[in-house]
């Protein structure tokens, strides 16, 4: 009788390691289900639209956007922050939960890491095209030039560049490192160009126990390093705002507020992706309702942080006795953008409370609906912070509303399409969940058996064999 899977208590159904592998490689090896085709096609079309919008931006200039004076940061920065925030869940699930020995994350981390990668890519395009002269983007890097000019290192905008670049690199490496053993297996199981691709990408991984041990140590170290980065990235993003004296931005509260918001929006997006995915690929056994329940709990916790800061923001605006701050707060609540503000409050403060109740939290349909709402809510939050604050600064003569143009909308929908298309391609190429599960968590708290690969925590510096 085949052995039960070591993680049998975390997954549902009768699984052996082998049957689980077969299940998890299905999306790669079997023809894709119909929803995949729909998503990929929609994503592809939107990606083309996106490229067209970028082309328009380049050929005609930023005048095609809705930005104006004083709303110089419009949809571009709203979506930059939104996407970066979404990216955070991936790293969080991969890294922080590893460190916290939450090995239920094993079922989820691959897809969320991929989500991170594409979300950060989407995010990074916005500041690039917003520069207006994207071909000179390298001017913000600190290299010695004939101009003897250096970027202002005390500016959060310059920190942003490095934070996002680091974040992108680390999340790519993290995703890739997790993929290597899967790629080796796929290499052995596939033919033709796929075999070539997996062969190149797997770097000649053999699955040797010694390699596994070092691999696991490296993985944990990477997780440990990625954790501060994930916190720092959104804190740095928040300082883009907090360093500005615009009323509604100038708060020391911003870094933790943004970090909580990022985790919240990231988990929401992860839920939005995982719930249909487990249905279409019949992965209910691997991504169980308990997983969703856990994710709901994290969403609730981070969402409460966000809700708390909303209330604190109102309090600070009042307590500071700063007329511009208070006017800004009133403008948010009663001005022409009030519907946005109140919708944000409704979702992120009121509807969030439903997750306290197991009845709602364990209801997959509600969780899915809520996760989409939370995405919208976080989009609204960014809109409130970026656009509404700017539209109402100090001088009444300077107040101006913002209305996005079709280019703005296309850029947004385009990144959504690129995101979906990228994920669809990734799912076709790489299994949605790592199969050698125990080997990426520090210890297998839930497992009954220590897998052979799971001994030792630190790399053993033995002599290297070469072949």
């Amino acid at each position, binding site marked *: 009788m085949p052995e039960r899977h070591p993680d049998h208590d975390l997954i549902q159904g009768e699984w052996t390691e082998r049957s689980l592998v077969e299940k998890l490689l299905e999306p790669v090896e079997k023809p894709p289900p119909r929803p995949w085709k729909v998503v990929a096609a929609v994503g592809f079309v939107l990606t083309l639209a996106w490229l067209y919008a970028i082309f328009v931006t380049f050929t005609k200039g930023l005048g095609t956007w809705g930005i104006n004076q004083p709303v110089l940061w419009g949809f571009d920065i709203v979506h930059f922050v939104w996407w970066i925030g979404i990216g955070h869940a991936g790293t969080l699930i991969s890294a922080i939960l590893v460190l916290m020995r939450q090995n239920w994350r094993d079922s989820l981390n691959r897809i969320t890491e991929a989500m991170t990668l594409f979300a950060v890519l989407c995010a990074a395009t916005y500041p690039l095209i917003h520069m207006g002269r994207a071909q000179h983007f390298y001017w913000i890097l600190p290299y010695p030039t004939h101009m003897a000019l250096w970027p202002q290192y005390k500016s959060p905008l310059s920190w942003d560049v490095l934070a996002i670049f680091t974040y992108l690199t680390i999340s790519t490496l993290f995703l890739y490192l997790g993929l290597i053993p899967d790629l080796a297996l796929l290499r052995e199981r596939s033919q033709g160009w796929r075999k070539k691709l997996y062969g190149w990408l797997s770097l000649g991984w053999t699955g040797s126990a010694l390699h596994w041990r070092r*691999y696991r140590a490296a993985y944990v170290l990477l997780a440990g390093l990625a954790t501060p980065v994930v916190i720092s990235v959104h804190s740095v993003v928040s300082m883009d705002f907090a360093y500005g004296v615009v009323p509604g931005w100038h708060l020391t509260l911003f870094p933790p507020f943004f970090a909580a918001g990022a985790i919240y929006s990231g988990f929401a997006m992860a839920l939005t992706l995982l719930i249909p995915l487990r249905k279409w690929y019949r992965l209910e056994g691997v991504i169980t309702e308990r997983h969703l329940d856990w994710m709901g709990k994290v969403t609730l916790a981070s969402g409460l942080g966000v809700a708390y800061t909303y209330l604190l923001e109102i309090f600070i605006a009042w307590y500071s006795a700063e007329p511009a701050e208070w006017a800004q707060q009133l403008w948010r609540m009663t001005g022409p953008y009030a519907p946005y503000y109140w919708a944000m409050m409704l979702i992120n403060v009121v509807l969030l409370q439903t997750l306290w109740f197991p009845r709602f939290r364990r209801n997959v349909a509600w969780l899915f609906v809520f996760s989409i709402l939370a995405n919208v809510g976080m989009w609204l939050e960014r809109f409130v912070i970026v656009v509404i604050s700017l539209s109402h600064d100090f001088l009444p003569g300077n107040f101006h509303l913002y209305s996005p143009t079709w280019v703005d909308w296309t850029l947004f929908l385009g990144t959504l399409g690129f995101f979906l298309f990228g994920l669809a391609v990734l799912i076709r190429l790489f299994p949605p969940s790592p199969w050698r599960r125990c080997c990426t968590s520090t210890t297998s708290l839930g497992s009954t058996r220590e897998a052979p690969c799971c001994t030792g925590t630190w790399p053993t510096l033995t002599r290297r064999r070469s072949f």
Partner: protein
Amino acid sequence: MGWPAFIPVTFEITILTITVGIFLYLLYLNGLPLAAHPAVLAPRYREALVDRPALFVYATDPRFDPEATRDLLRALGAEVEEVRRA
């Protein structure tokens, strides 16, 4: 006293270098990347990647004795195969 402003960039660059370093060091320690490895020529190597333990005895060992090794492993109840480098 402007030094705190320089912390974020320093921090990010530190992490970036360490991460890339760890990744490269892992590859270096493991002797990767490899274009091919003799182990993959074993017929049931695929299973070894999933849930079967497999033991490779390399002929590069100066005290390697194919007959004695095979006998020992057979006695322990393993299937023994010889894989030749292509």
